[in-house]
């Protein structure tokens, strides 16, 4: 143990002696650790976010198509299925988009179709009467609105005045940041739906596994309908974000590779000095094994500290400072961005994996130069100088 500690102390002292080399290698590794873990952590939290929320959705949504173009659907189009034992409820919904020129953004206009209690994510209440609305936090922030304020919105029949009854908090921003929730009558008049038709039907099932069978029944009843299954949305999301994060990671991996190449070059390039040092150590009674341990300790201490610092900085950057540039890169530009409040999914095992990805290759590439530098003829080296 004492021997090991002395070797460790010697390895650390050697890192300080070669300050410039240690700092440049350490900084390179820190930068890569930061970028790689930021991309992975961001992807993990976004994936966890939609995986958590998707169970709140109805299993099927049915849209009417006519001639390949979307049409609205009658509320009782699936009346025959209402008594089906596999179906819990069929809810006709009114929703659409409203373009707000001053923000160059689209609001999601939705008619309220339920009255759930939302004490922690809603400041105020849901709209109960005509002329009232509840909005998402980004919309409220961009328009400077608070509960009790009034706003005129450009509807299908000209401007209409509404009073804000509630604002969703920033915790729900990723879901409802751009939402404007109205009573059905107001939503219809804003969107210009002046008949009895609905945007779509949301179908909640008693058992999600029956989704395919019920979708087939619906297809027979409404041959032109587009039936979107919840599981399909989940898959599409997993694919699209996996793709973007994978693209980012694919960009970063060559950087890691080229860094390792440079590190290899530097570690084996400075071997003259190291061979001399190894020669002196061998003469003063060190064993070959000690020199190898010393080199491994040196590189794993350097890469361990750099990786740990890089991962910690990535965590701070993502979850404390809300990922200023990376979020734009991953999500793209938008005129109304959500408040980027993600829940970190960092676990001990994931942390270990990240540290291993970064430390092991770096330590591994330092072993061969160490072999070469330790395998010297000490006598000849000291006789002939370097």
């Amino acid at each position, binding site marked *: 143990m004492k021997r090991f500690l002395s070797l460790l102390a010697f390895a650390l002292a050697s890192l300080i002696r070669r300050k410039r080399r240690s700092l440049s290698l350490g900084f390179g590794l820190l930068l890569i650790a930061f970028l790689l873990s930021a991309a992975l952590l961001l992807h993990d939290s976004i994936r966890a976010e939609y995986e958590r929320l998707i169970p709140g959705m109805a299993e099927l949504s049915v849209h009417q198509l006519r001639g390949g173009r979307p049409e609205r659907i009658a509320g009782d189009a699936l009346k025959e299925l209402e008594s089906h034992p596999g179906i819990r409820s069929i809810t006709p919904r009114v929703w659409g988009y409203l373009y707000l020129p001053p923000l160059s953004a689209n609001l999601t206009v939705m008619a309220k179709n339920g009255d759930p209690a*939302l004490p922690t994510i809603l400041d105020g209440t849901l709209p109960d009467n005509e002329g009232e609305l509840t909005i998402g936090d980004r919309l409220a922030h961009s328009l400077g609105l608070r509960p009790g304020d009034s706003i005129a919105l450009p509807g299908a029949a000209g401007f209409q005045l509404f009073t804000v009854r509630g604002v969703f908090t920033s*915790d729900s921003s990723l879901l409802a940041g751009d939402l404007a929730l109205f009573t059905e009558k107001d939503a219809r008049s804003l969107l210009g739906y002046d008949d009895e038709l609905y945007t779509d039907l949301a179908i909640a099932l008693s058992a999600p596994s029956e989704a395919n069978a019920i979708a087939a029944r619906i297809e027979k009843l409404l041959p032109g309908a587009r039936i979107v299954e919840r599981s399909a*949305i989940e898959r599409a999301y997993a694919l699209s974000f996996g793709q973007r994060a994978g693209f980012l990671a694919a960009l970063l991996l060559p950087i890691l590779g080229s860094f390792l190449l440079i590190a290899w070059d530097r570690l084996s390039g400075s071997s003259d000095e190291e061979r001399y040092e190894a020669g002196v150590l061998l003469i003063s009674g060190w064993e070959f094994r000690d020199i190898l341990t010393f080199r491994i300790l040196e590189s794993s201490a350097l890469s361990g500290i750099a990786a740990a610092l890089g991962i*910690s900085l990535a*965590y701070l950057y993502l979850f404390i400072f809300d990922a200023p540039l990376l979020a734009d890169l991953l999500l793209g530009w938008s005129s109304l961005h959500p408040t980027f409040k993600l829940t970190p999914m960092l676990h001990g095992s994931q942390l270990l994996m990240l540290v291993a990805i970064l430390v092991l290759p770096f330590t591994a590439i330092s072993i061969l130069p160490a072999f070469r530098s330790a395998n010297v003829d000490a006598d000849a080296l000291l006789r002939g100088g370097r």
Partner: protein
Amino acid sequence: MIASFRRTLLPFFLLSLVSIGGLFFALIDASIRREDERKRVDEKRALVSLLPSAELFFSSSARWLRHPSLSEPMAPFADTPSGFDVDPAGALQPPLSLHREIRPKVQPE
């Protein structure tokens, strides 16, 4: 002995302390935030039932990007028939025409 320890090992000791402390902070902070989120998750799922779908709000710049799985197939062309890019949210910056200032040209006298 103490002086040499200070010179050589103290910076490393401090750096290791900071880096390991950083990892511990990340782990503890992450578990606190997960616990907070667990308390909110039922309400968030109830909120999803008030929305067209659980799709996350990443872009409001184009209506076909807000709920991509539910949007109508013709929306990109219907909105911008002459647009080059059907996915403006794939870019880092807004389309040029949005932030280009239109100034009347002043003729030199």
